[in-house]
């Protein structure tokens, strides 16, 4: 079994927690890293499902459904985002149930392609249900994250970028914890067994479809949560934005870049690629940034075929 050295991970987390206190003025970096945490959460959600060997191209559907459900609850009932976000994410889980039933027999490339097609279903419905979802117009003016009182301390999650950053960081760390549990537990090894050889897993009495569905439901809830947060951070939803294929590809890129099946892989991927693009490439090369981004991806894959996380110190195996 693997017992990772906790030191680098702990140091990394500490760094993420402490830096805003040391550089309190760097609001734009808090902004970018906050969104990075959000996308890392999405990537971690994707990774949970990928642990069963499934490469999904449909996670934008969960993201979008979470965003829209939360937005609609907020718009029609004026509930606080603190309530609508966790509730709205359940819409993604409902979709995941259909997914788990419909795609039971699909594996590999076919599953990926089917999930890609599945994205169209919520997208087109939301886009065309004008009376309820406002269709292509989207919904603007959603409530921002409210201020909350924590132990006598007033934190404005909507306006104070630092507070928002800590909220998103916290949610990301929860997702990391969930990934950690799902990799280094009996269940995690069950998922790994399914991923490596489904026949052998079944021969050991593992109900692969059920375990895969469990992972998918967890994954969809996290992805929905990320979508719902996104809607309220930006204050708007629009079908083309939250059901965007780019949101399906992003977690894939972060996970493979960082190293899938490793707890910190998706986080590393997100924390390298997104800030690199947002803080360096876009300001430096307003026109050619995507060329550089593409080159970075290509070169990294050639140098780190197992993802960046493979570079992290790894503890020797103990028996």
């Amino acid at each position, binding site marked *: 079994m693997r017992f990772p050295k906790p030191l680098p991970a702990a140091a990394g987390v500490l760094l993420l927690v402490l830096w805003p206190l040391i550089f309190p003025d760097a609001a734009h970096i808090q902004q970018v890293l906050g969104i990075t945490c959000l996308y890392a959460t999405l990537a971690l959600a994707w990774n949970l499902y990928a642990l069963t060997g499934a490469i999904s191209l449909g996670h934008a559907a969960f993201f979008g459904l979470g965003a829209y459900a939360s937005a609609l609850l907020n718009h029609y009932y004026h509930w606080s985002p603190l309530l609508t976000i966790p509730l709205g994410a359940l819409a993604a889980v409902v979709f995941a149930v259909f997914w788990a039933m419909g795609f039971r027999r699909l594996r590999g490339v076919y599953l990926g392609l089917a999930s890609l097609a599945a994205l169209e279903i919520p997208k087109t419905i939301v886009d065309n249900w004008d009376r309820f979802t406002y269709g292509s117009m989207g919904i603007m003016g959603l409530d921002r994250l409210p201020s909350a009182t924590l132990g006598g301390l007033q934190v404005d999650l909507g306006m104070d970028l630092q507070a928002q950053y800590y909220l998103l960081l916290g949610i990301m760390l929860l997702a990391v914890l969930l990934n950690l549990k799902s990799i280094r537990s*009996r269940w995690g*090894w*069950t998922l*790994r*067994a399914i991923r*490596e*050889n489904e*026949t*052998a*897993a*079944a*021969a*050991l*009495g*593992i*109900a*692969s479809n059920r375990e895969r569905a469990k992972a998918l439901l967890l994954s969809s809830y996290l992805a929905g949560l990320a979508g719902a947060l996104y809607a309220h951070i930006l204050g708007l939803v629009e079908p083309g934005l939250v059901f965007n294929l780019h949101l399906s590809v992003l977690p894939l890129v972060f996970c493979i870049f960082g190293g899938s099946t490793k707890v910190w892989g998706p986080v590393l991927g997100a924390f390298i690629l997104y800030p690199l693009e947002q803080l360096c490439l876009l300001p430096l090369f307003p026109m050619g940034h995507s060329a550089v981004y593409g080159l970075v991806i290509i070169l990294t894959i050639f140098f780190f075929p197992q993802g960046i996380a493979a570079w992290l110190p790894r503890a020797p*195996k103990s*028996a």
Partner: protein
Amino acid sequence: MAAQGPQVCLEVRQIKKYFGDQTVLRDVSFSLPAGEILGLIGPNGAGKSTLFNIISGWQKADAGSVFFFGQEITSWTPKDLSRAGLARTFQVPQIFPEMSAWENVLMGAWLPPQSRPSFSKAQEEADHWLSLVGLLELRHTPARDLPLAQQRLVELAQVLATRPRLLLLDEIAAGFSLGAVKRLAAGLAKLRDQGLTLLLTDHLFNLLEEVADRVLALDRGEIIVQGPPAALIHHPDVVSAYLGTRCGAADNGEA
């Protein structure tokens, strides 16, 4: 309930299987008392693997039924059969390629939902079974890097770790050296003495000769002879079945 005489572990009744218009199994019936080692021989295409797949739930029979300790298990899924204590190995070993040999065996000890052992207990079990198949020194080697014969042993240790009551071994000794076959036979005999029931196929005869209590000879989907291995090995029908299929001679086919 106290069993009178040996309990029947596996009973196969009138199994039929067709692929298109081709009959693969016709009315195959036999029963396997608990604690016995039953061998199954037959030339390629005799239907051994199909029979195995039907018993272990990987294929559906077109007719007939299978009973496991008195319970009908005819259309159970492999996963349910495994939970009930019916384990098998495959001709092409089904293991977890990225895991080490030891981790593979650990999966067998740790994951099966019916037992839910503690992790430390499962580790002990994994050590035990891996040493039983003699691969303890290769414990850290990724399974995919092992030679095929050793992959079979890993798979054997893995399914043994699930603590089955009946174990189906599909050509487990293929590619083994004579010494390895003898060691394996000794190990299997010991397992039988501990109460495990075994059903083995063998394309050749070497393992069955060593260890089987009784052997069924299958040809073109039918049991043609059964008896102790020593009696079967030179039985004219068995010999002609093997030779006939091998040479593909038409006159043998008509006989």
